[in-house]
């Protein structure tokens, strides 16, 4: 019946188990999903992240010269779906959880990046250049032909492909 006294005495002897945070350091478990980092150079503009985003936090804006990526942390559920579906690892969830902020900074809690568009070598239409990461995912090794395909828009690539078939004379 008096086992609670034993527990209390043990607690008293062991001392507080309180984390020293906010006055000291605290721990961060491995794999914690925190602030999102966007790497524009790896983005291929597939917009899968925008599609799967549960909180509707990701938005893409396309203009003449660039593709703008915006993620608002105040709408992000940190579910990690965007990271899961991003094959080129342009979106990564870091372990930084220090996200509390004042109201003035509410709309500044964003992660932004711009992917500049480049003209197609064939027709000159502006297109999203194929990122190095995608090349690495798609091909084991690259050669000059494949590298030339990179600079072409999908239409020109298709045309080139059809030509290639003719040349082979199947």
């Amino acid at each position: 019946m008096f086992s609670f006294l034993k527990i209390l005495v043990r607690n008293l002897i062991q001392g507080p188990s309180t984390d020293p945070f906010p006055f000291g350091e605290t721990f961060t478990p491995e794999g914690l999903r925190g602030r999102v980092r966007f790497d524009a150079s790896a983005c291929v503009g597939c917009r899968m992240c925008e599609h799967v985003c549960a909180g509707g936090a990701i938005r893409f804006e396309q203009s003449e010269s660039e593709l703008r990526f915006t993620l608002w942390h105040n709408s992000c559920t940190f579910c990690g779906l965007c990271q899961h579906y991003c094959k080129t690892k342009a979106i990564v969830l870091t372990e930084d959880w220090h996200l509390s902020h004042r109201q003035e900074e509410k709309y500044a809690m964003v992660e932004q990046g711009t992917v500049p568009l480049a003209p197609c070598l064939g027709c000159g239409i502006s297109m999203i250049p194929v990122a190095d990461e995608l090349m690495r995912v798609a091909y084991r090794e690259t050669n000059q032909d494949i590298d030339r395909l990179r600079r072409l828009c999908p239409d020109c690539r298709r045309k080139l492909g059809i030509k290639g078939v003719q040349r082979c004379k199947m």
Partner: protein
Amino acid sequence: MKTFLKKVAAQSPWLYRINAGSCNGCDVELATTACISRYDVERLGCKYCGSPKHADIVLITGPMTTRVKEKVLRLYAEIPDPKVTVAVGICPISCGVFRDSYAIEGPIDKYFPVDINVPGCPPRPQAIIEGIAEAISVWRTRL
């Protein structure tokens, strides 16, 4: 003397929770910060109080559903000044995953001033404590 008393008084922020139609995820995290000895908010001088009239720092969770809106506004008006408002979780800040629903009237900063936002779905207890610590520094200036 007066400023000294105010400085002393700033060490005693009492917390009050308002659930504005939350899914209870954030409320569980708030209960964790209150009840688990690892996070112990009492060492900051905080105390969870049951009555809105005793509150200094208001922690709001939930995206403000239509049904609960009138009650939340009434509760908020009951809290005596000076007070600091903390929005816990992404729902009160931006309505989060419930945005654009016919049953949601939020975000809450449409209705009353918010001072601190703690995003997360739900935020981890340390993040909530960080938000509370920041709210205390705001509260110090209000007294």
